[in-house]
């Protein structure tokens, strides 16, 4: 027995780091395989495809950056991009402030049944976007919509929530409803991780509740807030499911280029312009990364000011 373990120890000593390295890589390899297949390969394929143009007559030709130049001046793409940009600027702050408020409220322990409250706020996250949009769509609707019924009961004209003016706020409401709970959970987890001595120190300095929020909780929340903000930015640019489901209720308002993703989808599957759609996907990904990076820089700079 002693001989065996001694022998193993010697073998370990021959190439301990190499063996260890190989083992580590083997643990990582299965993930790497699907990562390359599901993320890297499609990305590279889209980039390659976006440099060509396929025609029924004349076959496939290399066109360089033509597809990108075309996208940069495509009014439908730009209008969609502007729409999700506006959506982002309004919806993301509202959603994150609500999430922050709820997380702080639960953490302050002044809420009745905090567990129940937390679950209630979180539940919409477990509802598929398709179902969430269907439900809100029914409630918005003119015929048997709840909001219309309430408005009529008070003798008011029901607002046209599915019309072109209010469609974007109506969609923003659905997304907010779905994701406040998720963001709240990220923020709440970060709040729970604040060490007690920070509070004790603040109390010694005579800090009240509000002062504690401002000087202890908010600074500690910044990394989590950054994470939530970046995920929200990515989500906004990718807006697809909610407007796509709304198309059934308001086909004239949504149309075929309401958001960049809807536009790319329509081009690829109804317009047979696969390579142009690939260019739009790549471009949208780039815009998303740039904006996410700007958000990161802005929040990081705030950190120094506060």
């Amino acid at each position, binding site marked *: 027995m002693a001989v065996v*373990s001694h022998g193993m120890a010697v073998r370990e000593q021959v190439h301990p*780091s190499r063996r*260890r*390295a190989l*083992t*580590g890589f083997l*643990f*990582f390899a*299965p*993930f*790497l395989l*699907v*990562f390359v297949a*599901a993320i*890297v*390969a*499609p990305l590279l*394929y*889209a980039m390659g495809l976006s440099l060509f143009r396929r025609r029924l007559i004349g076959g496939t030709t290399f066109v360089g950056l033509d597809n990108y130049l075309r996208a940069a001046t495509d009014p439908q793409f730009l209008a969609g991009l502007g729409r999700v940009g506006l959506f982002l600027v309004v919806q993301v702050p509202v959603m994150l402030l609500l999430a922050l408020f*709820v997380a702080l409220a639960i953490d302050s322990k002044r809420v009745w049944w905090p567990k129940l*409250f937390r*679950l209630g*706020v*979180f539940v*919409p*996250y*477990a*509802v*598929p*976007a398709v*179902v969430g949009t*269907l*439900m809100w769509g*029914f*409630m918005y609707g003119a015929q*048997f919509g*709840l909001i219309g*019924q309430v408005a009529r009961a008070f003798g008011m004209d029901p607002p046209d929530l599915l019309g072109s003016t209010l469609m974007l706020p109506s969609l923003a409401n659905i997304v907010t*409803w779905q994701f*406040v709970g998720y963001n709240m959970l*990220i923020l709440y*987890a*970060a709040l*729970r*991780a604040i060490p007690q001595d920070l509070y004790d120190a603040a109390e010694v300095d005579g800090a009240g509740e509000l002062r504690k929020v401002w000087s202890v909780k908010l600074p500690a929340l910044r*990394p*989590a807030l950054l994470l939530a903000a970046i995920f929200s930015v990515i989500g906004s640019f*990718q807006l697809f*499911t909610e407007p796509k*489901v709304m198309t*059934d209720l308001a086909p004239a308002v949504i149309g075929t280029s309401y958001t960049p*993703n809807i536009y790319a*989808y329509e081009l*690829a599957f109804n317009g047979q312009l696969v390579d142009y*759609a*690939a260019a739009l*996907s790549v471009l*949208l990904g780039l815009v*998303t*990364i740039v904006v996410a990076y700007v958000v990161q820089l802005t929040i990081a700079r705030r950190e120094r000011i506060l």
Partner: protein
Amino acid sequence: MLLGLLAYFLLPLAWLVINSTKSTAGLFQSFGLWFASDFHLFENVRETLTYQGGIYGRWFLNTVLYAVAGAGGAALLAALGGYGVAKFDFPGRRLLLAGVLGAVMVPATALAIPTYLLLSTVGLVDTPFAVIIPSLASPFGLYLMWIYAAAAVPDELLEAARIDGASELRIFWSVAMRLLAPGFVTVLLFQLVHVWNNYFLPLIVLNNPAWYPLTVGLKQWNEQAYGGGGGSVAVLNLVITGSLLAIIPLIAVFLVLQRYWQSGLAMGGVKQ
């Protein structure tokens, strides 16, 4: 204020439960937040499950298959990979990590159309693999498991197991996985939600309704209810009841496993 907020989050769900008890006629005639004179829930469920030859049940099983295979696989790969990155040093490790973390930024839906094109060149479109394979890669899951493994699995414990002569795979299964369980459940749950609720990818890669998940199927019924003119409004009650049935499993899973995912998430929050 807080109660009002809670009401806002629960209102649509209350609406869904109440209105799944109404016939189509009742939907139009009664107030949205109260029951109609006839209680139609059981007929609605029966109709939902038998409409178009019982295809709803098929969609339900497809969704379960995609969610279990996709999320279970993703969580397992993330746990293996996160453990490997956190507890071993190998050449190129930092570069690989940077690549994976960069991919957290790559929006999943930007990949949907290229993924479809790629899958069609290898002949996997319109098969369950077209939905499952893309669901297996979760960069954020790997990130979470990496953080979690670094914090929750002590090196001394691994060394002790090695001295006892246990193989590396066995150490992972019987020592590390036990400590990684809350993180694993967290990744599993969030990927489960992602796959169960996904719409864009299955919409693109599946044409055959027999392979649809619930989201794509329900959207198709909704299209039928609104698009096909007056007569087909008859399926509205099925869209509502089908929606209710589609959200029950995930909510149940979250309720049952809440102790795990809440501690797992707290762990992710510590080291962000």
